[in-house]
Each structure stands twice: as structure tokens, then as C-alpha cells.
């Protein structure tokens, strides 16, 4: 489990509103999501759930695992002030374990609302429950918006 976190920097917080709209904010982000299986299409699993941490909200993940241990995922976080879109790629270990883990890198590429120009990146960790098709996913990194 991830512990409490704190934003590393919130440069826009003290600016007047007129300037805030055009200024950048950089956050150190840590989130964790417990996701349940929604449906699948072949080698792609679609899971959803709630994320807690720096940017709480709902999370939807399209997780591609076609037999190659190099897995990938498209991640959308639905936060209170908009959505954040991310792409992750990593490596899955112990494929015959009931709960294989994976880890890799995450890149943020846009979103909507407050996060429409979001950029950033970091690391992704997860556990894939092969019986239920649910996942626990953790991210940590830096978000600019």
C-alpha cells in the first residue's frame, strides 16, 4: 500500500486568478487504484475502479497482455477537475502465478478540463489477479499542467 503523499510543488497556488490560467503547476503524484474487471476483448482487459492519492477519482484501464511479458496499458483518471490520459508499458513477471506483478513506465499525454495540457511521467506498478481479472495499480511520478 502507498502511504500518504504530499505535493512537491504547487507553483500556481499563490498567483492571482488572471495569471493562474496560463501558469504551469507541477505536482509530485502518487495514486493507487483498486480496479475490478469490466469486460475483455481478446487479449485486452478493461478494468475500472477508484483511485486514491494525489488525484483521487475513478480510473479506467485498457490492459493489453498478448503473451508477451512486455505489457501495455492506456489509463484514464477521471478527477474532480478533468481527466488525465496516460500510457504505460512494463514487464509482467511470473505469468503462471495467480497474481503476477508488473512494473514499468508511465507517460502522461493530455486530458481534459484543468488537465487538458497535462504532461508528465513516472513509474507504474501493479498486480494482476488472474482469477478475477481485477488489478491493483500504483503510479508515482510528476505531473505538469
Amino acid at each position, binding site marked *: 500500500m502507498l502511504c500518504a503523499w504530499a505535493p512537491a510543488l504547487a507553483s500556481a497556488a499563490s498567483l492571482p486568478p488572471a495569471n493562474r490560467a496560463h501558469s504551469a503547476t507541477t505536482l509530485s503524484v502518487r495514486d493507487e487504484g483498486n480496479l475490478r474487471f469490466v469486460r475483455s*476483448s*481478446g*487479449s*485486452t482487459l478493461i478494468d475500472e475502479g477508484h483511485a486514491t492519492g494525489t488525484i483521487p477519482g475513478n480510473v479506467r484501464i485498457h490492459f493489453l497482455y498478448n*503473451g508477451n511479458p512486455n505489457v501495455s496499458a492506456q489509463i484514464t483518471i477521471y478527477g474532480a477537475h478533468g481527466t488525465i490520459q496516460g500510457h504505460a508499458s512494463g514487464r509482467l513477471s511470473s505469468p*503462471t502465478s495467480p497474481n503476477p506483478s508488473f512494473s514499468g513506465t508511465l507517460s502522461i499525454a493530455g486530458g481534459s478540463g484543468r488537465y487538458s495540457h497535462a504532461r508528465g511521467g513516472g513509474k507504474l506498478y501493479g498486480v494482476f489477479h488472474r482469477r478475477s481479472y481485477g488489478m491493483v495499480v500504483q503510479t508515482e511520478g510528476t505531473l505538469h499542467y
Partner: protein
Amino acid sequence: MALAAPAQGHNARAAAGGAPRASLAATFAPERLGAPTTVTFALNIDPPPETAPPPLSQIDFSYPGNLGFATSGLGLAACDPLELQAVGGQACPANSRMGGGTATVEVSFGAELIQEHVVLELFAAPSPDGYVHLAILARGAEPVEARIVITAVLLPGHLQIDVPVVAGLPGAPDVAIKQIRATLGGALTYYEQVHGHLVAYRPRGIGLPDSCPRGGWRLGAALAFQNGEQSQAGAVIACPQRRGRRRG
């Protein structure tokens, strides 16, 4: 519960030079887009007339890369191939079983070629490299009692099977595979702990994608023989009819 009739694809055989001809049939059962299924490959090897088929060294079954083999929920434990060889399928965890099948092999007895029926049991094996590995137990009883473990690896879009040399009688040719039929998934019983109790369940199976490619799903088999010859065969599984057009 009755299952829908399996969707089946056959195709013609192809061979290079004097290599044995091969034909492949493949089925998804049931065949519903976006739903779990079982996959069956049936391969026949026909040598030129008056000759015995040469022993195989490798079979590479190919299938659409977006089939959900790796996300099937099959193979939640691993079976040690050495124990499988020494003891048999009962040495393996129930949750390592991935499927089964049959094969027909040809064994030379003097001038006579005898066909032997072989039972196949497919298990997940330990993975040294992150890919899903399989151990396939081949058991024959008559006329030759034998237990052989064949190894395979599940690659994206491929199931690659390495066939070992199986020696025949002294002075006779090696044993050769004539037919092989294998199913991944199906009526398997797995177990899980629920509130301290062991509960049986059936694993979900191999996920079909939401859509079917134009012309159907193409599957194939590439065969390599111990003598260096190669053959190929293909099969197409037609797309399912739209639900509104189905009858009955």
C-alpha cells in the same frame, strides 16, 4: 448446458518438395465475439505414398495475436516437467491444467507400420523468461507403453511446440506423429480458497475479440521435420453470423 456448435475452419495442405503434406482444422467453441471460448487445433500429416512420415522436430501453431490466450485464466499454477515425466499428470496441480487432446503416432515393427493412440495432457510449466510455457504429457499404452513430455511456449500469436526424438525399436526408424488434435481450455476444474474453503470453479477460457477480421480468423501450422523438411497448413474460421440472423 448445450454449447453452440463449434465454429470450424479447414484448409488445404501445402508442402515443400517431397515433404509430407499437412492439413489443419481449427475450431472455436463456442464462437461469440467478446466471449470466452476453447480453441482446438487438429493437424494431419500425410507422407508421400508408400512412405512413413518423418519424425517432427517442431510444430508452430499460429493464431490471431489478439486472441486472449494469456488473459484466459488458464495455468494459474506450474507443473514441473520432471515430475510430470516421472509420475504423470497426477503430479501436477489442478490449476496448472490447460487442456488436452489425442495423437496418432506410427511405430515401425519390422516391415510393418503400427499406429498407436496417444493421450495428450497440457499443463502450464515454470516460466524462465516471462512467457507462458507448457509441458505436454503424451501417453501411449499399446503396442508400446511410453510417457513423453513435450515442451511448448506461448508467444504472441504462436504456440511453438518442440517435439523430441522418440526412438523406435532397435534398428527401426524413430516414432513419427501422424495426427494431433489438441484443445486449450474446455471442461477444466480449478480450485480457489474462499473463506478458508477450497471451492471448485471452471476457468473462464480464451477470450475472443469484439470484432472478427474480414474473411475470418486465419490460423496456421508450420511443421519442421527431423530430416530438415518443412510443411505448412492453414485454416480459416468464419466470422460468426450476426446475432439477429441466428435461428433456433
